[in-house]
């Protein structure tokens, strides 16, 4: 979701930092999807071993030279004027300040589970939290739990 007017180093640094943070988990692989021009920057795979299909989620990356979170929320609402409901996978927005290397994240399609449900809650207001290795662990763990519950959810919906 990088603005094409962003300087090259804002785009490249933000995606490099996002990729590096995500792969601090040894079970995570990152594919750069920018070439597809569909708004998705990174497709993230959570490796479950050679016999299992990986859990997937999407990360949109926004690089910035500003620490002003109000600007980030504006960017988010401009990106999704009609909501973010088009995602069928869990999705996050990472905002990276390339001057300080500090990053924040907000769910866009948030995985929410209950006993028999696994839903995505869509949020374009932006509830940003600090992005660090602990946050990456939490994101990955929530995505894994969502995929674990998804078969139950689908079974209940079809029965």
């Amino acid at each position, binding site marked *: 979701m990088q603005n094409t007017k962003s*300087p*090259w*180093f804002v785009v*490249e*640094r933000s995606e*490099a*930092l996002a*990729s*590096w943070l995500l*792969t601090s988990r*040894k079970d995570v*692989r*990152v594919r750069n999807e920018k070439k597809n021009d569909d708004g998705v920057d990174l497709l993230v795979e959570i490796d479950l071993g050679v016999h299992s299909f990986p859990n997937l989620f999407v990360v949109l990356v926004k690089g910035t030279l500003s620490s002003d979170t109000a600007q980030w929320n504006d960017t988010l609402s401009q990106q999704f004027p009609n909501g973010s409901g088009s995602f069928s996978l869990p999705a996050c927005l990472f905002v990276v300040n*390339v*001057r300080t*290397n500090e990053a924040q994240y907000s769910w866009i399609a948030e995985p929410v589970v209950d006993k028999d449900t696994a839903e995505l809650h869509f949020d374009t207001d932006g509830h940003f939290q600090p992005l660090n290795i602990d946050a990456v662990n939490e994101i990955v763990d929530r995505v894994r739990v969502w995929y674990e519950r998804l078969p139950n959810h689908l079974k209940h919906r079809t029965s």
Partner: protein
Amino acid sequence: MNSDDIGERGQWLFCLLMTELCGRDAPLFRPRFLGDKFPTFDYLVEVVDHPTYYFFVQVKATTQGYTKDPVRLKIQVSVEDVVRMVSCPAPTYVAGIDSESGNGFLLSVNESRGPVPSLITKFPINCDHLQLLRDEVCDYWSTRNMVLEGSHFRE
């Protein structure tokens, strides 16, 4: 994590370290990835504002850490790669990346030498050394006349 994954993390870290703003409005360098099949080198790095000034880098990443005494990063560069780097008509460097800590280190490989069994940690990739590197590369190119004069194929 396999060696490809470690290598990718090393490349991301290398780009981050080389493009640190260091209080400026723009980085000093722009790394250009050469592709997985390019021999010996991983990046052609341009000097920002002087795109005709550049150098080549081989990036080696490790999760193995350091030797103890002396403290050196546990990466290796083969003699074949060293020979190719020395024969290159542009400045060439090895960048060793500790992909656990996020630190990177530079080594010039422009003069004849043997293989690199481990990497000296005297030259961390930080703001001071980025400026020194820029000066070194600019000095190298600015003292050479790279214009091909009297070509057979001129109009």
